[in-house]
């Protein structure tokens, strides 16, 4: 594997210097020279290997980095977790690798997607490849975005060397569409195809995954993704009691209007048409066992360890965004909504904890009022999911960390940042 070549290293150092100087110029009254001098010292120490190495072999770890975190940048460009955050496939528009269309059929909106199971290698930590089984070549699989009451039609072809299915966590009324070995077409062998039809119901953020045996392996190898079912504001107006955990007698007109408005802000088409100052992010928590010990070596949101971390830091409050490892930049004026899904195998639970921030949480996304209000840590078992709504409008610009509050998971890759601007 190529390490940083000298030109790139030099560019990198220059960028680091510039950034550090800029940062310090504004933050502290420090002369440019003293900063560069310090960097020079660090650099020469790295070159001569004097940086703590008694062997003097110039082992050359990056001395201006604090030790924690995965070393290096990602090399594989087939998947970008930063793009994945906001990639929604609606049938009307979506990713190139997900052929899709939307049309009316018997008075119902049909959203049709072509799914193909493919075996491929995914990079899960810089330089570490994992032999994955995927939907359409990516882990997590493509995020589907539909509206409640739609028909979701998946034309599925198994191009993988193992038999697979797609099982949706939806309220499905036809058993043969459940995507399990014991029903319908069962496990689809290599080369076989089947068209799944699912009713988009209920509203919420849901999971789809392969249900072939052995289940642990088929899930852990990467066959999972999110399907978001948006509320239909008209339906909310008619049946508001289905969207809140209240008795129908408690529904006032004011509440009804409020719920309709909330439903619009949850609905992708309304969001596209209106300027709600809203930013939506999909985060699928996952893990990878690279050495077959039934324990994950890598934890992440959206597959890549530390993909939303800082590129490098000196551990003294200065940091530098990396090419592939960088915080998620968010506008402080936008409300942030996270569709959080737990697809972690081998561990009973996973979690999301925000630093300096509390949020409202909608478990499964199946209600329009929060199921947890003002929390900073939420726990999910496997397949559990929910919606988080965060407000950074009062926060000063800067880095805000969020991570699994299982410290072990955090240190094994599930460690991320928002950069509020």
């Amino acid at each position, binding site marked *: 594997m190529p390490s940083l070549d000298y030109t790139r290293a030099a560019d990198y150092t220059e960028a680091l210097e510039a950034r550090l100087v800029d940062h310090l110029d504004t933050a502290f009254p420090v002369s440019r020279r003293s900063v560069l001098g310090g960097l020079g010292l660090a650099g020469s120490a790295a070159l001569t290997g004097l940086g703590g190495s008694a062997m003097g072999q*110039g*082992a050359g*770890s990056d001395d201006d980095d604090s*030790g924690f975190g995965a*070393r290096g940048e990602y090399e594989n460009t087939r998947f970008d977790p930063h793009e994945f955050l906001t990639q929604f496939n609606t049938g009307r528009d979506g990713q190139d690798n997900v052929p899709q269309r939307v049309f009316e059929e018997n008075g119902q909106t049909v959203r049709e997607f072509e799914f193909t199971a493919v075996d491929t290698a995914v990079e899960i*930590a810089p330089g570490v490849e994992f032999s994955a089984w995927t939907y359409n070549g990516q882990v997590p699989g493509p995020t589907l975005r539909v509206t409640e009451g739609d028909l979701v039609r998946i034309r599925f072809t198994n191009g993988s060397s193992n038999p697979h299915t797609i099982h949706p966590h939806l309220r499905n009324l036809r058993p043969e569409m459940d995507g399990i070995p014991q029903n319908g077409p069962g496990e689809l062998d290599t080369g076989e195809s089947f068209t799944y039809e699912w009713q988009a119901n209920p509203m919420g953020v849901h999971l789809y995954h392969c249900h072939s045996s052995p289940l642990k392996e088929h899930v852990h190898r990467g066959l999972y993704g999110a399907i978001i079912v948006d509320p239909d504001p008209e339906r909310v107006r008619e049946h508001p009691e289905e969207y809140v955990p209240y008795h129908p007698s408690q529904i006032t007109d004011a509440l009804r209007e409020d719920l309709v408005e909330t439903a619009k802000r949850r609905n992708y088409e309304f969001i596209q048409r209106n300027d709600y100052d809203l930013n939506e992010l999909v985060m699928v928590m996952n893990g990878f066992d*690279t050495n077959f010990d039934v324990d994950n*070596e890598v934890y992440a949101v959206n597959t890549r360890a530390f993909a939303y971390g800082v590129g490098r830091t000196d551990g003294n409050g200065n940091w530098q965004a990396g090419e592939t490892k960088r915080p998620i930049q968010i506008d402080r004026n936008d409300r942030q909504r996270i569709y959080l899904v737990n697809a972690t195998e081998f561990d009973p639970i996973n979690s999301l904890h925000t630093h300096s921030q509390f949020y409202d949480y909608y478990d499964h996304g199946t209600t329009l009022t929060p199921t947890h209000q003002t929390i900073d840590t939420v726990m999910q078992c496997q397949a559990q999911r929910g919606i988080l709504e965060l407000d950074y409008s009062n926060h000063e610009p800067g880095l805000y960390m969020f991570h699994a509050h299982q410290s072990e998971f955090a240190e094994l890759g599930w460690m991320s940042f928002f950069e509020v601007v």
Partner: protein
Amino acid sequence: MSDERSEPNGGVTVEEGQTFGLPRWVLALLPVVLLAIVLGLFLVGNPFAALGTGGEPLPDVTISYTTLPDQGTILVHVTNNGPNAVTVSQVLVNDAYWNFGVSGGDRTLAPLESATIEIPYRWNPGWDLDVTLVLSDGPTVSHTIVAPSTSPGVTGTILGTLAVVGLFVGIIPVALGILWFPYLRSLSEHWLHAVIVFAAGVLAFLAFDATFDAIELLERVPGAFEGSLLFVLGVVGAFFAVQAISSWREQKAAAGSERASSGLWVAYLVAISIGLHNLAEGLAIGSAFALGRVALGTFLVIGFMIHNVTEGPAIVGPVARGERPALKHFVAFGVLAGGPVIPGAWIGSYAFSPTLGTFFLAIGVGAILQVVWELTKMAQGDTGRAATPLNLGAFLVGFVFMYVTGLFVTV
């Protein structure tokens, strides 16, 4: 074929120095050239393609040892034993991804390549560390550093200290043991033989000791170096090397050489083999010291002194009869037998490797075995029997003595 002449019986007479009419050097090279051609065809034709299952050979990476130069650094010494290059993509310390550097700057190790991985990690003395290397396709290699403490590293002071330790552990006890020489001269033939066999017992015990140490060390020898066979090579090689010297002496003695027939040769052989053993002992002391694994306390040094003092009479036993050798020989005995502790300790502290350690131990074992053989021949005396009750008892006493004193010196 002008060289050939037909014989009446149909045979062919060939000129001296030529076979099939070819010069001898061609005949020597012919099989080699043919082998090269066959190998070439094999590589080009790949006739075993049908046997290929597509299975890659498994990666095989060994962490030979770790050093902790200071409390902010872990150095991991790794070797790639496998037939394919491997890339150390990530490093975990106690289940957390950590930054690291690889000596030479390249994270990919060619087959048989060794490297040092430097991890800037603030560890705590006494709290075990688990270091795991994550290779590019996911397999992991783990190593637990038990009760970590700072490795002293190599400084002038430390080399000096090790020299002093070596002096006390190696040279002084051997020299003191040699001082038994006048007493040995006063012994009757029987008792002198007993002393010599006692020395053989001491050495045989050391051979066992070194063998078990080597077996322990073998597990950490990188697989590609075939630790067990390396040990066999060391033992057999050293045995025959010493045997060759010994045979050469016997030939010279048979040819009437005065010096060669004296016991001095045997004494030197004993001194050299004990020296080899002490070199391995020095390696153990030095590496334990460098890895911060041992407090070289007074007790340990005293233990080593008692342990090694018996090596003195083992050396001078063979020269107890006949003319007293010049004093310089005694000095040489002491230096040859005890001195190697010092370079051993230096090597051990600076560049200890299980491979080197195993090999030195093996050489010591081989040399000792030959010398034991030599000593028992010497103890035969006029009767031609070494296995007298007295001698057998003395051999056993040598064993027991080393066992008991060995209890004091566990590095």
